[in-house]
């Protein structure tokens, strides 16, 4: 089967404005969770969130930015960084390193252009239909981030937007792998984006009792597997990976971060919001990813867990990992980078896959912070940066979403 390599990375996250500053912050255990400064937050039960460290308005051209929802702005920042990092972009004097018709995009979002939707609805109610922006539809449609990236890099193979709540980012990576393996593209820019730090989504997640209310200590609020956890912290941001066929990457002598070796996608059919308590669907997703990657559980050294810091989800995933890997589970270094970034919903899988790829590339696992009173999971959770050994390395990134979506991606060092 065609091997798929990761040849470019980009991110704009709560802990850094690009991939390298994000990675540095994760290794240092720095939290991106803060009090929300806008007045609207004061009416809510949760007044903390993980907003991006660098506002996209500082990076993007003003006129371009005003035609994009914030979710598309963030996606464009991350994707263009990954695109430049891959070396495929070319400059004014040379042609891009891939034919447009062989270049695809899969950029996911969990919620889409919700800020544009709600702002325009406010304008409709307060000022009338004439004040609804003519750009509202192209800005709020969930495929807008993918389409705008496609326009920016002239991608003319498929341009896609997988939507599966908090598994969306990983589903985009899985789709990109498929596109290359099925011969539909040589290069696919994949990832996820989310910009839902707004009173309506915050109020709605609050009504689900999904959000942490540790408002007086924001940096300690996201605490996966800690007995004191009380819900997730809403994060925003985007991450992108350039996936490329081995043949294409080798022919141009590309820098390779890791192999995206396989994906597993399953559904729980259990409940629209609650995880299956023993994570059967998650177990099957991990096993499917390993099988597709021709990887044994014994080879795995690391899992970047979904672990969002909710009471039920973290334990269900721990059970699923043990069921999926059997005795090999004890040999895996686990982490949840959400302890620092909060939960980026549709971007979570992409940002955490980026962290997984860099963990293999740099041979070190970022810590899970705030784990002071751990649940008895029987698993090896890194609370400090943990060096990985020499030789070939393999890792999984898990993402699960409301709706019962489970997506695991298997990565291998190259």
């Amino acid at each position, binding site marked *: 089967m065609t091997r798929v390599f990761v040849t470019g990375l980009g991110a704009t996250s709560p802990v850094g404005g690009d991939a390298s500053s994000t990675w540095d912050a994760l290794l240092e255990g720095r939290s991106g969770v803060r009090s929300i400064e806008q007045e609207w937050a004061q009416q809510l039960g949760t007044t903390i969130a993980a907003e991006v460290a660098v506002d996209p308005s500082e990076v993007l*051209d*003003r*006129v371009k930015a005003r035609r994009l929802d914030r979710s598309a702005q963030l996606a464009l920042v991350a994707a263009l960084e990954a695109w430049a990092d891959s070396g495929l972009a070319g400059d004014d004097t040379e042609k891009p390193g891939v034919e447009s018709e062989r270049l695809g995009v899969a950029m996911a979002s969990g919620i889409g252009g919700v800020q544009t939707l709600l702002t325009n609805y406010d304008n409709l109610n307060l000022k009338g239909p*004439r*004040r609804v*922006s*003519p*750009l509202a539809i*192209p800005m709020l449609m969930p495929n807008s981030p993918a389409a705008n990236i496609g326009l920016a890099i002239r991608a003319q193979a498929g341009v896609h937007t997988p939507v599966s709540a908090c598994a969306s980012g990983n589903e985009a990576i899985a789709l990109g792998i498929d596109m290359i393996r099925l011969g539909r593209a040589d290069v696919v820019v994949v990832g996820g984006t989310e910009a839902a730090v707004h009173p309506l989504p915050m109020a709605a997640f609050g009504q689900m009792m999904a959000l942490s209310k540790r408002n007086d200590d924001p940096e300690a609020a996201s605490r996966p597997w800690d007995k004191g956890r009380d819900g997730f912290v809403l994060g925003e941001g985007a991450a992108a990976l350039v996936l490329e066929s081995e043949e294409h990457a080798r022919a141009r002598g590309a820098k390779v971060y890791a192999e995206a070796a396989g994906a597993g996608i399953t559904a729980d059919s259990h409940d629209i919001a609650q995880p299956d308590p023993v994570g059967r669907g998650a177990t099957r997703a991990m096993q499917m990813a390993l099988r597709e990657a021709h990887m044994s559980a014994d080879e795995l050294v690391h899992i970047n867990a979904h672990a969002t810091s909710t009471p039920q989800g973290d334990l269900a995933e721990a059970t699923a990992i043990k069921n999926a890997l059997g005795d090999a589970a004890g040999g895996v270094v686990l982490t949840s980078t959400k302890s620092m970034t909060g939960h980026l919903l549709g971007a979570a899988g992409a940002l955490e896959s980026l962290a997984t790829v860099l963990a293999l590339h740099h041979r070190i696992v970022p810590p899970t912070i705030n784990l002071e009173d751990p649940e008895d999971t029987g698993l090896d959770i890194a609370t400090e940066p943990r060096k990985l050994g020499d030789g070939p390395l393999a890792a999984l990134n898990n993402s699960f979403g409301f709706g019962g979506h489970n997506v695991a991606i298997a990565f291998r060092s190259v």
Partner: protein
Amino acid sequence: MATTDEIRADLADIVNEVAGIPADDVQMDKSFTDDLDVDSLSMVEVVVAAEEKFDVKIPDDEVKNLKTVGDAVAYIERAQNG
């Protein structure tokens, strides 16, 4: 009542805000689409902002007749005086 050049200058600020065109480029003989690169959706934004700024109504049917900056300034002047 605003002078013709005051209307042009205010309209130029709107075109700059919406489309990023330098305000000095927004002169009477310039075509919105051919010279200033204002696409059809941006033109709707310009029209709505102009309605608010100049307190006039510019019906959708009229917009297609506003090919140049001068056309728009003349329409606004007529509407204000009418």
